[in-house]
């Protein structure tokens, strides 16, 4: 099963998105939160992202979902610290954080491969939620 890492400037957002996605996808989901510089400080931390990548890692790879700005830079910096073999099964996604995490979590939980999980998560940006 594809693992998921949630990167947000806010530790509460990262933890909350993880909670919501887990609720949708079931307990077996591999999902880790990397929010804030520490538990009380807004920002992003390369160290926290690396820790979350280790936590969510598995044979099927990891999808990284980010909010904005330095979350992207920190995630890229974390990825650059890994070796090529590790990098090969990571995708940094352009998906919206909350909606993307929900779709990615469900798609991962039903055993879809990493590329497909990312595609579904990125496409949710086009969903008309006002119906």
């Amino acid at each position, binding site marked *: 099963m594809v693992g998921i890492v949630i990167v947000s400037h806010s530790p509460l957002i990262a933890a909350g998105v993880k909670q919501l996605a887990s609720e949708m996808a079931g307990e077996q989901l591999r999902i880790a939160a990397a929010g804030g510089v520490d538990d009380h400080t807004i920002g992003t931390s390369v160290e926290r992202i690396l820790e979350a990548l280790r936590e969510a890692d598995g044979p099927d790879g990891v999808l990284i979902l980010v909010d904005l700005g330095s979350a992207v830079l920190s995630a890229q910096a974390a990825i650059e610290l890994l070796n090529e073999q590790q990098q090969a099964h990571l995708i940094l996604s352009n998906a919206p954080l909350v909606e993307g995490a929900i779709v990615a979590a*469900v798609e991962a*939980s039903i055993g879809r491969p990493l590329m497909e999980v990312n595609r579904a998560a990125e496409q949710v940006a086009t969903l008309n939620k006002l119906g």
Partner: protein
Amino acid sequence: MPEISITIQHKAGLHLRPAAMFVRTACRFVTNILVRNDTRGGDYKNAKSTLSVMQLGVNQGHSITVRADGPDAEAALEAIRHLTDSNFEDTGADMPA
């Protein structure tokens, strides 16, 4: 092709948690499963794709048709019928919809 029609009673329609449960139920079967929102009209979509199901825009009271055409089609439709009959096993107002 075996098919069933269902009216969705869940207050949130086929969004978020009900959509996730719908897709996860469909994925337990090998058969191709298609679903259409009869109330809005439109095309049949893949019932095993979270995004496709959410894109149907199924609200409370909408009717859907579910079609399956593989070896376990009947079992798949029965499982989906059971899920919707149980109103997505909704036991409390505290569950996200």
